[in-house]
């Protein structure tokens, strides 16, 4: 019988395991039962030398699995088969909590390291569920989903945090009168008469079956994992963290870039996707499609948002501080451009030219937008840059692709350079990196 904590380490059962776990100093020592279970896991192709021998080893193996699963084209599950062995649930729960704490202490909550771990937890749950016999699986799924059920059904509103984080799409769910339809009899009661040329039973199995429940479950645990990491992060400023956790956190800081770097040079190094991008002259060839369109001129309707909100923040950060999203620091324009010459001579002319290219030219009928541009650079509501006014307003960061789709749908025409990107600044960083490399070759 599979334990609930094997699927949801944040369940009451999982918390009980943590409460009963002894000394954290033991996590670096060899653990016989861990070695025994890993060694005897079916379908495993791993030499004894690579079998995890301690909780510390198991923690690193989990992260290695996450990186390889995501990046290695020759990934072999058989080398990590022990991760889907339900006999390992005790060790797995402890390792999960160790990793959550180490990640919370070492990395920011929005960092790619945190995202990698949270994402991998969701993937691991789905892989584990797939290996559990159907009867036990249904029981475990119901058990985990119980906490979001109201009167036997799940309201979409009870999953609003997961929907807001985009882990679960409303459009992928079957929703009726606020309920997410999951059970077969419920589906048939509500919709059987709507299917004329197909069997409603079969349509239920195809459209919903167990797969939707499993998706909800894995997203729910991902969300809870993220919240748990956030809570630890907040607490870590007030309470003393165990040295073993700090040590693992420091190890992960080296381990993750090293492992990731084996598969993707660009993503390697601290700071992730933005880390390797240096400030430098703007390269228009690397502008993403939405920025190219804005620079060429926007027609009436979206002009203000395109110039003031999108281009001003994009051009200024792309030129002065392209790694803003990696740093999570509060920066000012003058930190990078102390005498404001770059801003005056390179950034503002680009923005003003784009404003002139609009139809009709933006400043002709809306000259006040010049003030808004200055304001979005952090220099208050004034008509020109003045270092003495800096800080009166905030230097706006570039809006995400998601926001562009909402605010400026006519500018969003993604091409292949946008693939896997969620902010035009990161698209620019990647494209510039590739163009710079191509030039060197």
């Amino acid at each position, binding site marked *: 019988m599979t334990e609930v904590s094997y699927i949801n380490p944040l369940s009451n059962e999982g918390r009980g395991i943590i409460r009963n776990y002894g000394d954290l100093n033991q996590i670096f020592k060899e653990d016989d039962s861990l070695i025994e279970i890993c060694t005897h896991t079916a379908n495993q192709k791993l030499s004894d030398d690579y079998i995890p021998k301690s909780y510390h080893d198991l923690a690193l193996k989990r992260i290695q699995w996450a990186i390889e699963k995501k990046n290695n084209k020759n990934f072999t599950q058989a080398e990590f088969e022990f991760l889907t062995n339900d006999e390992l649930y005790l060790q797995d729960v402890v390792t999960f909590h160790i990793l959550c704490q180490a990640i919370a202490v070492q990395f920011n909550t929005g960092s790619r390291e945190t995202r990698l771990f949270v994402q991998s937890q969701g993937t691991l749950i789905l892989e584990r569920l*797939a290996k559990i016999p*159907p009867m036990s699986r249904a029981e475990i799924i119901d058990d985990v989903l119980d906490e979001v059920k109201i009167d036997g059904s799940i*309201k*979409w*509103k009870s999953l*609003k945090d997961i*929907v*807001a*984080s*985009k882990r679960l*799409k*409303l*459009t*992928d*769910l*079957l*929703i*009726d*009168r*606020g*309920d997410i*339809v999951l059970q077969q009899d419920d589906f048939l009661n*509500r*919709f059987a008469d*709507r*299917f004329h040329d197909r069997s409603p039973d*079969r*349509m239920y*199995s*195809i*459209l919903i*079956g*167990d*797969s939707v429940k499993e998706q909800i479950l894995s997203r729910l645990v991902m969300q809870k994992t993220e919240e748990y990491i956030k809570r630890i992060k907040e607490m870590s400023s007030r309470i003393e963290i165990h040295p073993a956790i700090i040590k693992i956190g420091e190890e992960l800081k080296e381990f993750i870039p090293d492992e990731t770097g084996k598969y993707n040079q660009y993503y390697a190094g601290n700071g992730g996707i933005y880390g390797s991008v240096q400030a430098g002259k703007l390269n228009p060839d690397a502008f993403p499609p939405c920025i190219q369109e804005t620079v060429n001129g926007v027609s009436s309707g979206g002009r203000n*948002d395109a110039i003031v909100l999108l281009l001003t923040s994009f051009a200024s950060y792309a030129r002065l501080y392209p790694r803003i999203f990696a740093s999570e620091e509060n920066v000012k324009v003058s930190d990078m451009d102390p005498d404001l010459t770059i801003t005056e001579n390179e950034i503002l002319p680009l923005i003003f030219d784009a404003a002139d290219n609009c139809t009709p030219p933006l400043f002709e009928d809306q000259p006040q937008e010049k003030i808004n541009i200055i304001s979005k650079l952090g220099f208050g509501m004034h008509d020109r840059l003045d270092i003495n006014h800096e800080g009166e307003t905030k230097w706006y960061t570039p809006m995400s692709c*998601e926001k562009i*789709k*909402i*605010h400026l*749908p*006519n500018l969003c*025409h993604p091409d292949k350079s946008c693939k896997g990107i969620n902010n035009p600044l990161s698209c620019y960083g990647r494209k510039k990196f590739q163009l710079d490399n191509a030039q060197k070759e």
Partner: protein
Amino acid sequence: MFSKATLKERRQYYREEWSVKDLPEFIATDLKKREFGFDHNGRGPNDRYKVFRGPESLGKFLKFKSPFAAYISVAFYNNPRRREDWLKAEYIFDVDAKDIPIRTCQCNGVCEVCLGEALEIVNSLIDTLQSDLGLKNIHLIYSGRGYHIRILDEEMMSANSELRSEVLKYAAGAEVPKSQFINPEISNKSFNFEHFTIPVGYSKIFTDKVKFNIQHLVGNEKIDGINPKLMKDILSSRHHLDNDNWGYFKRDIGPRRYKNLVAAMARVNLSTIDAKVSIDLKRILRLPSSLHSKVSMKCMEVKNRENFDPLDKAVPKFVYERKGV
């Protein structure tokens, strides 16, 4: 009607026709927690951060100032005068008749026809919000040139912009529904179902909206992703949709172009609504019961949305007194 109101007409409206009772209850309740904004000269709402203790003091202000336009925040604050200590905000769908991307009238501003089409669109949105998403506290406001759907369900009032955006995409039909379904218990192969073959849930919402759009096309619309040849073929094949023969319609369009068509329709669906308004937590919106002076129409709550006729219900008396009307 549809022409600008003079200061004299505005005064006449607020002093003789407007009444505190015209304020919908959901507006009058907790009025002092909202920010008000006014446009006194037709150049935009630059008299902001106003606060009123209750409907009576608001009424006095309106009668005295007779503003060109009056606005109220969707947000509730502990300190509305400074827009501080945000508590919650209504969730809004703003459909402006003049901005609907597919309009059979093709007029330059607004007319009876596009206002009617805007009403059809908001009715369909409200049906989805109620029947699918289970939202209950929904009010429809005729804004003067279109409609505002104002939602006061607590879950949505406390929602952040991200959740608002996701609900918007669902209700608007702004995403192409998934067509591949994998269920290893039945088969290792995936099943492929076009949106029109699934008569429930989001696929149905999307299908209904695409059908509405296609049936309202005139042919000269410039729609991203639909070239003139595709537009011509859509128009010549759309009769199949009268009987929901989507299979024939898709066959005539061709599978590759059909994919382009549905992607384009998802974008059209999103641009039918002013999405910026929906995700904004601090927006000000035209005050129900106030005068839309640009078009000389009353902004008012719609009680019976099935047969609301703005040209009958939302025309102020002074319009009838104008020469030549």
